[in-house]
């Protein structure tokens, strides 16, 4: 009936095998992973573009109404420098806005996470900002800040601010209660609890917010350009629309889509790096 004497080494070896098996599953050539992830998306995209092209050609749809993808591609190929340059202008506004919005959101969430009272006073203001239609204040921002970069940055910041703040706040609060008790039992002060526990715990929530607010920041920049822009894809679309240059319009939209997808993928890649420890990034558990 006696249990066999269980030596620690024995256990370590058994566990080591388990760990090795777990690690082996995750170490996959990234290229194969990319192909596995990207291929279905590419096939789906190609199917839609093919159908679109066929429809336009078969039904002889007027180019000023809906240009065929091939025509849009031609327009892009004819002037790649133009679209790249305008795209970079939009990107500049979007990223600066994202940075500003995220910074303010995280700072406010930090403050609110420390006191319910402050949360009660700040949160309603944040909601007020959230429910204000951007299109309503966009012209106003142009009047205040003039044409160019500033209104773009502000509108992009306004759009990303709320989702990041809410997620950061939830993240700061979503800590393992046992871990919190442990830090408390070590007489850790508030700052230490925040840096060692709350901030890292919030990263999964923050990245979830980053992932969808980065494309949002591009939309914010475009909206701003629509109203005030002399440069950027938003103003390209605006001008093209007025001139019925539908191929240019679609080419700009396509560039925008590319920008959004690129930023999203970049964020996802950074997330995988930073959150290597989080269950959302582990394929098999």
């Amino acid at each position, binding site marked *: 009936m006696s249990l066999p004497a269980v030596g620690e080494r024995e256990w*370590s070896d058994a*566990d*080591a095998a388990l760990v090795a098996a777990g690690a082996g599953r995750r170490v996959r050539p990234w290229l194969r992973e990319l192909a596995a992830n990207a291929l279905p998306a590419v096939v789906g995209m190609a199917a839609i573009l093919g159908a679109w092209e066929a429809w336009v050609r078969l039904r002889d749809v007027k180019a000023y109404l809906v240009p065929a993808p091939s025509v849009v591609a031609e327009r892009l190929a004819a002037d790649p420098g133009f679209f790249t340059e305008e795209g970079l202008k939009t990107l500049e506004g979007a990223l600066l806005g994202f940075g500003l919005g995220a910074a303010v959101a995280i700072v406010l969430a930090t403050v609110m996470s420390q006191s319910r009272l402050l949360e009660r006073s700040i949160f309603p203001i944040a909601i007020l900002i959230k429910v204000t239609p951007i299109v309503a204040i966009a012209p106003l921002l142009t009047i205040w800040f003039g044409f160019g970069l500033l209104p773009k940055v502000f509108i992009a910041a306004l759009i990303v601010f709320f989702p990041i703040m809410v997620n950061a706040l939830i993240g700061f609060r979503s800590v393992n209660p*046992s871990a919190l008790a442990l830090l408390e039992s*070590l*007489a850790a002060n508030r700052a230490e609890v925040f840096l*060692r526990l709350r901030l*890292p715990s919030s*990263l999964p929530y923050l990245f979830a917010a980053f992932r969808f607010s980065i494309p949002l920041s591009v939309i914010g920049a475009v909206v701003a350009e629509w109203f005030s822009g002399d440069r950027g894809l938003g103003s390209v679309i605006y001008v093209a629309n007025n001139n019925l240059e539908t191929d240019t319009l679609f080419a700009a939209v396509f560039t925008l889509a590319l920008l959004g997808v690129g930023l999203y993928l970049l964020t996802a890649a950074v997330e995988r790096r930073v959150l290597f420890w989080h269950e959302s990034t582990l394929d098999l558990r």
Partner: protein
Amino acid sequence: MDGRRGALRRVPFSVAQPFPSVHTIRGAARVSNEQHVLIEDVAMTYETKGGRLAALSAIDVGVRRGEFVSFIGPSGCGKSTLLRIVAGLQRPTGGRVRIDGEPPREAQRQKAIGLVFQDPCLLPWRSVSANVSLPLAVNRRPVAVATERLVERVGLAPFSDYYPHQLSGGMQQRVALARALVAAPSLLLMDEPFGALDEITRSAMRYELLRVWRAEAAERGATVLFVTHSVAEAVLLSDRVVVLTPRPGSVAAVLDIDLPRPRDEEIELDAAFLDYVRQLRALLRDRGETT
């Protein structure tokens, strides 16, 4: 709360050896006569919507330095609450707790408390060794030596750079144990630390705990308060077992476990061991149901 002040404060502990019995000489009295933890008339009542809910009432227990005391009782008897009160994580609504004559908050400041929960609650973004060194990092005290020694002590030296998600439940709990001991606390509080493990791992972990405690803490006279709902576990580990009644928890009985140390698997077949198990079962049955 800088390192130097912490070091100065710790002096009374390290030189608090006027009690010769603190030293471990095989079989000699490992437990000193000095009172280490005093739980005096502790009561806990929660105000709920449905009225007052008494969780603990008039708990009076004195624990000597170096003693291993288990608290056992039916679930909901407030044994975890009691441990949280001793750790200074919760304030009792009645009575008080003294650790070396000071309130638990003072013990916290001196990093004199090591905690292990049922949930290993490792920080997933920290490696094994970084998790173990957490109490030292919070304390801003030199990290390397104690951390390395403890990681090795719990048999995880080859895994010191691994992350929690790469470890099994038993390994995670061993990291938690090493973390609790790394700052050389004088008081180790364990709340059903092996409750979430499978029976085989659980059994191995009990002896692991005894071995590590002996090597790391027993000779300094580190006291352990251990909450469990396993009778065999309580008998196997403890010098004394405190049986609590159902809610509101109060002390139903105290059973001295006079078994030789060090203890190994053989002891589980010992007649004296089995007798203690029988006695404790009877105590739980009688006091547990009738109150």
